């Protein structure tokens, strides 16, 4: 085994050391060398800064779901927008500075409003149809008392869903139907919640089955205290609280 003095600078894997990828012998060798080598110590100090900055950037990228599409861009498999932060799977809309009045308002344009309205009508029809279908399938015979389209939050931008609530006397049967949600990673699951926007009170309704459709019963008085539905991605870690990662949400 070499002494610290005998260890060449190039034998010390500082990047591997920072990443925790050196074995016992390599780690001990590096530590011994660093204790005697000002040059490598100075480099380690610099690399600590780069390491911290990269870890911070990676964490933020995961939080914002904007991590680099590394392999695809570099291997030329897709025509990306060039190097730099890449929003996975979703291209930026063209930069449009031609309608400053509209843009300054920060509100959707008329065409978008029409499209949104049309989509809402379609979703409403689907929700009503779902309610009727429930009745025909032997579900609780009753009236659809609430429905809501679910909009994507974190997660796939094309994910969607509906909430349909059917009254059966004093019971409300909630059916949450989702589509295009990614399969949860091992050790995680989707959970359905009801929310009260005024007080931010939350009620865990239940786990969303792997099929993407879940049905839940509750008392009408309980449901009356809420006006929004949320689907979260939860870690199966025993923590019953909302994970703060909402994938779908809608108001009814």
């Amino acid at each position: 085994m070499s002494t610290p003095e005998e260890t060449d600078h190039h034998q010390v894997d500082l990047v591997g050391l920072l990443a925790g990828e050196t074995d016992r012998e390599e780690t001990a060798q590096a530590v011994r060398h660093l204790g005697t080598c000002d040059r490598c110590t100075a480099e380690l100090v610099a690399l600590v800064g780069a390491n911290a900055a990269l870890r911070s950037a990676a964490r933020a990228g995961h939080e914002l779901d904007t991590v680099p599409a590394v392999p695809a861009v570099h291997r030329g498999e897709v025509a990306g927008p060039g190097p730099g932060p890449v929003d996975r799977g979703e291209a930026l809309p063209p930069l449009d500075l031609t309608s400053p009045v509209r843009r300054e308002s920060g509100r959707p344009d008329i065409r978008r409003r029409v499209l949104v309205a049309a989509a809402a009508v379609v979703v409403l029809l689907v929700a009503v149809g779902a309610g009727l279908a429930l009745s025909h399938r032997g579900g609780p015979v009753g009236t659809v008392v609430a429905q809501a389209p679910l909009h994507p939050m974190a997660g796939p931008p094309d994910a969607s869903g509906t909430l349909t609530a059917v009254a059966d006397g004093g019971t409300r049967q909630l059916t949450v139907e989702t589509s295009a949600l990614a399969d949860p990673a091992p050790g995680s699951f989707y959970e359905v919640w009801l929310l009260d926007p005024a007080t931010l009170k939350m009620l865990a309704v239940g786990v969303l089955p792997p099929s993407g459709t879940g049905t839940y019963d509750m008392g009408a008085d309980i449901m009356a205290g809420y006006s929004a539905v949320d689907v979260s991605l939860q870690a199966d870690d025993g923590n019953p609280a909302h994970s703060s990662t909402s994938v779908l949400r809608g108001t009814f």
Partner: protein
Amino acid sequence: MTTPPTILHHGASSRTSGVTGAPDVPVAQGIVDGDERALTEAYHLYGPMVRGYLRRFVDQDEVDDVLQVVFLELWRSRERIDPSRPFEAWLFGIARKRAIDQLRRRRHGVIPVESIRELVGEDGDRFVDRIAWAAEIRVALAGLPDEQQEAIELSYFEDLTQQEIAGRLGIPLGTVKARMARGMRRLARHIDGGEDR
């Protein structure tokens, strides 16, 4: 190969423009000078992270509109950009204000506690600073030679070990170590404000 960007104290992230074909002019300086190509370049560089930030606070169907508002305001406020501060702090400061505007406009729906916490007050300050810093690093990283950028991104953003990176790229482990070390040294010099200024 791209040219390493200028970052940090002077705030003007600089890079060769692969999108616009513009010469290698610091993006922020280009915007201050009224160069619309620099604005387009900034949009492609920072737009994804700005949109990711806005998504946390703004209704999904309004995010892209607010994104456009942010860059319009960036353009209109270009004469007030302080070159002594990081450009990213200015840009994300605009994004934060517009996100707050959007939350105020909401008449319906849920405003989660965590959204408020991440947007306003000291927590909001810290969060936006952290995101701006991350954007700065991401742009600096994008300015590294491709092979260095690739190795570092696979390590830090994909959580691959050096051995796994070697397998993924079909290159020797020693090459991975060398690429990462070179790239991180360059990033370290950027952070220290010493290189490519």
